[in-house]
C-alpha cells in the first residue's frame, strides 16, 4: 500500500519528527511504501506533492494542530490521530490505516 504521512505537533521540534519516524518505520515493517512529510516550526519538510497525495491509498495525519495544504488530500481516505498516539502506538495506527483502505475497497 502507498501511505502518505503528515505530522505536526504544537512545538514543532521533537514530537513532529518522532511521530513521523515511528509511523514510517512501522509502515515499512508492514511492507508499505511510505511518503512522510513533517510540518515543524521551521516549516514543511519533505513536502508531498498533490499528485503523490492523490496516488496514495490512504493519508495518515498525525497532528495536534492544523495541517497546511489539506487541499491536496481531496477525496482521499484520511486517518487523523494525535501526535502522542502516533509515537506510542505506531503499529496499531498503521493497522487502522490498512483497515480503512480495505473497508473502502469492499
Amino acid at each position, binding site marked *: 500500500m502507498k501511505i502518505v504521512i503528515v505530522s505536526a505537533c504544537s512545538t514543532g521540534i521533537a514530537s513532529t519528527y518522532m511521530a513521523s519516524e515511528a509511523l514510517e518505520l512501522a509502515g515499512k515493517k508492514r511492507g508499505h511504501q511510505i511518503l512522510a512529510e513533517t510540518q515543524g516550526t521551521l516549516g514543511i519538510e519533505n513536502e508531498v506533492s498533490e499528485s503523490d497525495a492523490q496516488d496514495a491509498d490512504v493519508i495518515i495525519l498525525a497532528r*495536534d494542530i492544523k495541517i497546511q495544504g489539506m487541499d491536496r488530500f481531496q477525496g482521499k481516505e484520511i486517518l487523523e490521530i494525535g501526535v502522542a498516539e502516533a509515537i*506510542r502506538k*505506531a503499529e*496499531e495506527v498503521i493497522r487502522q490505516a490498512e483497515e480503512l483502505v480495505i473497508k473502502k475497497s469492499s
Partner: protein
Amino acid sequence: MSSERKNLLDIRKHLLTGVSYMIPLVVAGGILIALSFLVGGYKGFEVAGSPADYLMKIGGGALSFIVPILAAFIAYSIADRAGIAPGLVAGSVAVAVNSGFLGGIVGGLLAGYLVFYLKKIKVPNVLKPLMGILVIPLVSTLVVGLLIYLVLGGPIAAVMAAMQKWLENMGQVNLIVLGAILGAMQAFDMGGPVDKTAYTFGLAMLAAGQYMPMAAIMVGGMVPPIALSIAAKLRPAKFSPAERKHADAAWLMGLSFITEGAIPFASADPLHVIPSQVIGSAVAGALSMAFGCALRAPHGGIFVLPLVEKPVLYLVALAAGTAVTAILVILVKKDLTENQLKDKSIAVGEE
C-alpha cells in the same frame, strides 16, 4: 458527526494551532527582555541607545504580537486563511481591553467561527470575489471587534484580573503544590495532552507577567530524559540495547527541555518509569517554586539558565528531581532477561 463538524468542535486543535504560531514570539521576546535585564540591570533599558535599551525595545516588540498572533491562528485553524485578519484584530482588541491571553483565545474562536459561517453564505458567482476581499474581512472584523469591546471584553478582563490576584496572593505552600503539579504534568505524558495543558498554562502566565510557573514547568520537563539517561548508564542491565543507545542522545534532549526524549524509556516500561519520573519532576517543580525561581522564556532548557532568576537554586531543583527519578527507576526496574537483552528492536512504538 460529519468530519467538518468534528473539525469545527476540535477546540484543542484550534488552541494548539494558535499557541504553535505564537511560541517563537514568546521565545524571542522573553529571552531578549531577560537579556536586557542581564546586561543592564532592571533599569538598564532606560539609558537611551544602550544595548539594554535595544534589547528591551525589540523584545517588547515581539511580545506585543503574542495575543494577536494567538487569536489569528486560532481563527486560521477554524477558517483557514480568511480567519487570520479578523483574528489578528480580535487579539489586538482583546489586549486593548486588558483581557489578555484569555481574550485572545475567545476572540480568535469567535473570529474563526464567524468567518467559517460567512464563507458558507451562498452568493451568485459574480459576487463571490466581493465576499472574499470585502464582505468577509469587513463584517467579521467589525462584528468581533464590537463583541469584544461592548460585550465580552469587560467580563474576560475581570476574570484575568481575578486570576492574577489569585496567583499573586497564593500562599507559599500552594505555590509549591502548584509547582509540583506542573512538574508532574510534564513527566506524565512527555509532550502529550497533559504536558501541553500545563505548558499552555505556563505560556498564559508569561503573558500575564507571572514568571514562576514556567520555571517550574521547564525544570519538570528537563528531569525525565536526563534522569533516565543516567539510570541507563548506571544500571545498563535494566535497559534494552535500543534504550541504552537512545540514552546517548536523551540526556542532551533533557537539557534542551525536550521532554519527549524520555518517551522510549517510558514506552518500554511504563509501569516503572512513568511514576518514577512523575515523582522526580514533581520534586523539581516544587523546589523551583519554593526557591522562587522564575523564567521569562518559554523554552531553551539549560541554555537559558543565565536568564533564570536564582539560577544556582534552579540547578539544585533540577539535580534533586533528576536524582529522585534516577534512584527510583533503578530501584523499581527489574533486570532484563537474556532474551530481552538480545532484542534489538526499537522501544518506541512497541507495546
